[in-house]
């Protein structure tokens, strides 16, 4: 199935439109996302990433251009229907936890959408199993780690059985372990359900896992392509204020001192593999 799940067509959005000196946060942006893709939207602070997220779920409407989601034009009328088909996880784990306990929080979106009680119980359990938090039904948020809270937030989104999951800097406030937990959860979910994921991030290591990367700068699309293609344009990324993944920086540095490594390495394992077989291959 190759249908388009989300598309932006010449979208421009400016905060405080009346003020001429304010530059548009998103400027003439066009892209489309296929059903089942994992897209990473990367960019430095102020590149317009968060505005894009808000445009995607109808918290903001573009001043010019069109946003389409699930085949519908985003408008006041279609808004709630579109929202019921997408889940969104935000940056701060604490500020999006609505329920008093894990299960209440997961059920929140279901309650809003009027899902009957029996169905809710099933879906809450199912969603929590998907993120491996089924043992924490009655836990309160302040007894959970950041990574666990974000997984609960993902479960809260999944309970609605969405077609699209948007992660808006969902890992940026987490410690490395929490970040791994969340990324691993997303990977497994993708494997199991083929869910479409848009992850908005400034962490290129996370972006490296995606099928396609969109690099944003000052409200415009700077680069687009598969992760390895995007990462090959190393300096350009660094100039945009983005840090290359450690393994790639290492590769670049090794090349600079004259060690002829073969490919680009997106993970440390790949790099290590090449390094320890380096001499034997020669």
């Amino acid at each position: 199935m190759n249908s388009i799940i989300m598309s932006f067509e010449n979208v421009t959005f400016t905060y405080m439109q009346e003020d001429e000196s304010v530059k548009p946060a998103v400027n003439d942006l066009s892209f489309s996302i296929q059903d089942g893709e994992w897209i990473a939207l990367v960019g430095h602070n102020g590149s317009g990433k968060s505005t894009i997220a808000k445009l995607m779920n109808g918290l903001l409407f573009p001043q010019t251009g069109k946003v389409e989601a699930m085949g519908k034009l985003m408008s006041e009328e279609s808004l709630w229907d579109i929202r019921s088909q997408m889940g969104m996880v935000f940056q701060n784990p604490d500020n999006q936890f609505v329920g008093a306990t894990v299960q209440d929080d997961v059920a929140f979106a279901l309650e809003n959408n009027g899902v009957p009680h029996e169905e809710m119980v099933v879906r809450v359990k199912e969603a929590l199993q998907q993120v491996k938090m089924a043992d924490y039904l009655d836990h309160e948020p302040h007894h959970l780690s950041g990574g666990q809270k974000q997984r609960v937030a993902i479960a809260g989104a999944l309970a609605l059985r969405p077609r699209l999951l948007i992660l808006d800097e969902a890992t940026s406030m987490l410690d490395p372990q929490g970040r791994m937990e969340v990324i691993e959860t997303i990977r497994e979910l993708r494997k199991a359900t083929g869910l479409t994921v848009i992850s908005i991030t400034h962490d290129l290591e996370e972006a490296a896992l995606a099928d396609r990367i969109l690099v944003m700068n000052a409200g415009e699309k700077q680069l687009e392509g598969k992760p390895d293609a995007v990462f090959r344009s190393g300096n350009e990324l660094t100039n945009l204020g983005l840090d290359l993944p450690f393994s790639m920086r290492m590769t670049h540095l090794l090349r600079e001192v004259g060690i002829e490594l073969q490919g680009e390495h997106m993970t440390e394992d790949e790099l290590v593999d090449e390094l320890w077989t380096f001499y034997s291959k020669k």
Partner: protein
Amino acid sequence: MMEKMIFGRFIPGNSLIHQMDPRAKISFVFVFIAIVFIANSAITYGILLGFTLLVVFLSKIRLYFLINGLKPVFILLIFTFLLHIFFTREGDLLVDIGFIKIYEEGLRQGIFISVRFLVLVFITSILTLTTSPISITDGIEVLLGPFKRVKLPVHELALMMSISLRFIPTLMDETGKILKAQMARGSDIGSGPVKDRIKAVVPLLIPLFVSAFKRAEDLATAMEVRGYRGGEGRTRYRQLNWRLIDSLSLVVLVGLAGILVYFRV
């Protein structure tokens, strides 16, 4: 000190009282508060005290824990007790040491008021100790249901309550962090004259407010994205379940009222 306080704390458990429907428990407490005022003699206060201890026993919350947790309340209790003893001048004179004169009626009143106070504090504490805040909120929402007719935003009130409860620990943590951050910058909150201490709280409160507003905004966004559109058309994940024991508890309460009226002087 905060750890020992049991006001508003919930102790999970599986006792008879824990299993009761929050609606029943809340109604029970309110009716009980009214009933307490029927008592006016040694026997009736004795019955009340006995009944309360029975409830505590049924809740399987240790009396020691309860008393220990309510220490701050006891200070108030002793204060009212002494007030009654010293300022009621009726009945026979019992003690007369210089300026201290204790009369029989004063002693009686002091004991009665203390028992009344104690019983009320115990019963309300048992309510909050055995019912999770979220259940209390649910109970209140249902009990206030009829007031929707007069345009009381019952659902919104209940949601506000549950969100406030949910954020108490978060904001407590935050306060701790800000406190440490300010202490690291040399602010001194714990000492000096009262005026200085109050002034020192300001740099604590302002960041707390700023962050609370930020959180509120984030939360509102998250709620909207998750499809929150007010109470209409919403279903409930938590179902309340009125059982025989709940009806029985209220019957018992009516019985108690009857007994108290009978023994009343």
